[in-house]
């Protein structure tokens, strides 16, 4: 196996470790409107959007497992939720190839809401003995708002880290060419290249 083929997996492993450690050691200890930001679903979502559904789901599984391991939670719960986040972010990229700059923001909000509500559903299925407050919904909404604000910088940081290791995507290369006025088939040759030289008969 060559170094080139290992570049992306190695970067994703380092990213997952870094994200979970930073989340638990610093971000989770900062209270914003009574709740804390959670960077981990944003990182998984960003990887899905940038690298596709396979990398997204694997990143979701690994990050979720790491979170469950380090916080001594029921293994597999967070993994299940993050697999879905990574997979559907990746599918969005593969099916729609969204180019709008605010897509990570919308996906960040959706991912956080899915993680919060999904965790509630799984906990109810596993059985909760304690009374559940309606404030749970309020906390989820606040967490979604906070994470939405953070999704763009997180996406930018993840893109900066893993973009050099991504395989070249022909669709993106083609789109780059269109937007820079290089190879669009809609443009007439004369408008780009000037007058065509006439050949003598």
């Amino acid at each position, binding site marked *: 196996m060559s170094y080139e083929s290992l570049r992306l997996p190695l970067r994703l492993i380092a990213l997952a470790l870094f994200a979970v*450690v*930073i*989340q*638990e*050691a*610093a*971000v*989770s*200890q*900062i*209270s*914003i409107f*009574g*709740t*804390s*930001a*959670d960077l981990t679903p944003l990182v998984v979502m960003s990887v899905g959007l940038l690298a596709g*559904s*396979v990398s997204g*789901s*694997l990143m*979701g*599984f690994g990050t*979720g*497992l790491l979170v*469950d*391991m*380090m*916080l*001594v*939670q*029921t*293994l*597999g*719960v967070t*993994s*299940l939720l993050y*697999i879905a986040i990574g*997979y559907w972010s990746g599918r969005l990229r593969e099916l729609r190839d969204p180019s709008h700059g605010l897509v990570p923001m919308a996906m960040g909000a959706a991912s956080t809401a899915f993680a*919060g509500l999904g*965790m*509630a559903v799984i*906990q109810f299925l*596993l059985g*909760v*003995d*304690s*009374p*559940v*407050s*309606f*404030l*749970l*919904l*309020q*906390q*989820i909404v606040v967490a979604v708002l906070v994470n939405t604000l953070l999704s763009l910088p997180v996406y930018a940081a993840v893109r900066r880290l893993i973009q050099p290791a991504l395989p070249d995507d022909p669709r993106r290369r083609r789109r780059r060419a269109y937007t820079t006025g290089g190879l669009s088939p809609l443009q007439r040759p004369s408008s780009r290249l000037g007058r065509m030289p006439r050949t003598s008969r």
Partner: protein
Amino acid sequence: MHSKQVRRRRAVLAAVVAVSLILLTAYFGESASSPLHSVQRGIVQVFSPIQEGASQALSPFRDIASFFSDTFKAKSEVKQLRNEVATLQGELANAQAAKIQNIQLTNQLKLDNTNSIASYRPVAAHVIVRDPTLWYATVEVDKGSADGVHLNDPVTGDGALVGQVSVVDPNVSIVTLITDHTMAVAAQVQDTSGDTGLLVPAVGNPSQLVLQYLQRNAQVQVGQQVVTVGFKFGQYQDLYPPRIPIGTVTSVGNDLANNGQVQVAPAADLRHLDAVQILTTPHAGSLRAQVP
């Protein structure tokens, strides 16, 4: 080529979902000494030095963020605290009189009076990791079995009960807070008849607990303190020592008459714990509530 990619994608998805479900099922049915739990504790042990280092390195950023949130919070608390000071000054005078009377009666009855926090051999620890989710309320502290910490040791912070040790490793421990949905504490209201009940968290509201199974005609009032019971019945003992403060009754209303429960606010700020004390010999004191 395309169908190969689709097959690969579906296979990866099915594999990771299947592994997650197997882990979830296996972990849920296992005891605390099972292989999966041991692996989990091993991972905690491996990562604890990294987390401790990261926690110390990132403390300036946390302090800056906490400064702003504390400033906003402090403004809203000024009026409330002034009212509390006025009330507490009146209560202090009564408490001092009661203390003198208590000392005299204790001497007369020759009761063992070694149930202060100091007699439970507290070990001070710093919080290095907090759990951000709404469902799991745990913190990781930098003291473990090498410092004398044991499984299920009670943990106090800000002078009140905050939780119990749920995982112990040589250098770190995981503390499950009283707001975690798996926790329940036998508690007593410091009213005239000492009504007891079971204190459980209100999931989704980290600043609220619910004291259940009280008698419906109990004379519980807002502002009364809730403490641990610390019962002893034959060979069975409560995990917690008696009379450790837990919180204050904040709401009674119709809930007491209808359901036998009242709302309690924890005395400690559980979302901003920086340092805690682990009571390593919780059964050192012999003064306990006796179950008839």
